[in-house]
């Protein structure tokens, strides 16, 4: 096990153009499950590939287990990586796929069988060892890729969107399995995804990236409840945080904090809200509409409700947001600022 650290890590693909990864400083914790989260083009995969040694950094340092590894080839970094496509070797059986890292790392031959069996039983693919990758389902391929990654007990796991090729149902169960798997082996893991649900569910900490810059690094609770800027605020959460422009500050609140009320709540901002659309999602409703009157007149707002049965489309209702749930952002820098009193009228 080891800690991964980057210092001012930068990757510029074409001189003169904005970097894919800019000045990233991060330090994983021992045995941590760290998620890189960002939209496509945010540099999360490039960052991972630099840690893996598949991409040379333009500047900055990468440390694994306290040692600078910039000059080391991937195979000397004691890492294992699972690719988005799984990158199984199509001409080799599952057994040989899993044994390949052992052969390549010149592990003693007597140990191969035992280790392959250990890795494959850990992932429940012991019965598939004689098959070729093309004879496997998506979920089975993913497990083979994982087995191939753990078989030589690497110091760090790097996972590049390993669930994105699975269908929705399988993805949920694969996610849970990955979590169990990580708890069991306890290896430091870096996981790249664009899916906020995966990030929130699996990450011990989440690093939100955009345009090659780290926007926030924190626990799922921190990034969701205390977003560092408007990008994080709107990237996480579905529907995203409502943002309202109020002069020199932007005020944000989550849809679940925008609730209808029949009684006055102290320390809450009241709104008149015209309901224009509602979606029934089974366990909850997503209601959208516009504010009527006040400074936010005509502003589109989302609300997440346990039930919207009583709300009629086209009608106007009283909604409130508790003051403590308001997040304030600077309008220019988009960064979080301390709460202040603002006029809503």
């Amino acid at each position: 096990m080891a800690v991964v650290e980057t210092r001012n890590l930068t990757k510029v693909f074409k001189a003169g153009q904005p970097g894919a990864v800019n000045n990233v400083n991060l330090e994983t914790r021992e045995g941590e499950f760290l998620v890189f989260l960002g939209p496509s083009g945010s540099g999360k995969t490039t960052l991972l590939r630099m840690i893996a040694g598949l991409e040379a950094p333009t500047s900055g340092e990468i440390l694994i287990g306290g040692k600078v590894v910039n000059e080391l080839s991937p195979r000397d970094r004691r890492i294992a990586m699972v690719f988005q496509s799984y990158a199984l070797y199509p001409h080799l059986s599952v057994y040989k796929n899993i044994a390949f890292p052992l052969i390549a790392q010149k592990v003693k031959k007597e140990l191969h069988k035992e280790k392959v069996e250990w890795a494959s039983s850990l992932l429940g693919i012991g019965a598939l060892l004689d098959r070729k990758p093309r004879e496997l389902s998506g979920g089975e391929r993913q497990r083979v890729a994982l087995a191939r990654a753990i078989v030589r007990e690497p110091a760090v796991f790097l996972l590049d969107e390993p669930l994105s090729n699975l269908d929705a149902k399988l993805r949920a169960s694969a996610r849970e399995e990955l979590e169990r798997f990580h708890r069991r082996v306890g290896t430091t893991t870096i996981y790249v995804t664009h899916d906020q649900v995966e990030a929130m569910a699996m990450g011990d900490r989440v690093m939100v990236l955009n345009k090659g810059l780290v926007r926030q690094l924190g626990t799922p609770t921190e990034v969701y409840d205390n977003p560092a800027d408007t990008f994080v605020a709107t990237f996480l959460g579905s529907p995203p945080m409502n943002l309202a422009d109020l002069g020199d500050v932007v005020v944000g609140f989550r849809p679940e904090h925008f609730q209808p009320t029949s009684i006055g709540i102290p320390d809450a901002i009241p709104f008149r809200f015209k309901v224009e659309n509602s979606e029934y999602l089974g366990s909850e409703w997503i209601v959208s509409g516009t504010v009527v009157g006040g400074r936010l007149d005509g502003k589109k707002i989302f609300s997440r409700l346990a039930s919207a049965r009583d709300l009629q489309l086209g009608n106007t209702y009283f909604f409130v947001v508790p003051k403590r749930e308001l997040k304030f952002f600077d309008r220019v820098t988009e960064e979080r600022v301390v709460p202040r009193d603002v006029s809503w009228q």
Partner: protein
Amino acid sequence: MAVAKGKIRPLGAAQSPLLGAAMFSPAVLYIVLLVGGPFLLAIFYAFSDARIGNAEIHFVGLENFRSIWQSPSFRIAIRNSFIFTICSQIVVVVGANILAISLEKAFRGRGLIRFLILLPWVAPIALGAIGWKWILDSIYSVITWVLVAVHIYKPFSAPMWLGEPRLAIASVLLVHSWRLMPFSTVILLAGRTAIPKDIPEAAAVDGAGFWRTQLQIVIPMMRPIISVAVLFGLIFTFTDMTVVYILTAGGPFDSTQTLPSLAFALGIQGSDLAAGAAISLFLVPLLVILAYFMLRIAHRAEVS
């Protein structure tokens, strides 16, 4: 549209069997006149005593086969056909893999180098062979000149590239390899680009170095496409007589004869049509086997 509706008919072919036959006939004519006819004629000649300039033909049974089987030249020709074909394929597969690996990554001038490598394939084989004949000539050879200039050989004692049996065989082999290299390189380059980038990267992360990645992952993955290149190469080399004919004309002392060149030498130049035909019939079973494998690969490529 209502007006046009009645007038639009599917164009010809489906209704007119004549047009279909007409479109098909060039292929049939080609096969019957240029492949089938000569093939039947060769079988006919092989069992006869046909000679150029002699109108009388008698059926002689297997006499021709018996006599060529006993001729030492024929045995050398068979041996050479196999040596040239198999050895040149080994040289070509190794060389084309090296070229494909080095031409895979982008670098300055890659386009130019790819073009130069393709040149031997584009040039007519006879011209290429004549070029090599000069390069390997006993008096004007550039290679000999260089070897003498760097004092590896003394003047007049340098090897005769086309004049000594072993060297002549090696020279023919070299020219065959040179000729086929571009074709294989292009095919292998295409095969390489079809391999997802993830796979060699996964191998690198798994701990494989350059050689292991190439030998255990990339090249085995290219097996289908390599076999296409090899099968084509086998057929091109096995049936070719231009290179031998121009470089050595089968000499010295028939030491570089191949089945096609011997058939030409005996049948056309030596006027013994029957013997030539019998020799060329020996090519048939071997080519049938090769054709079978080619069709199988083509079929597999269509299915997958």
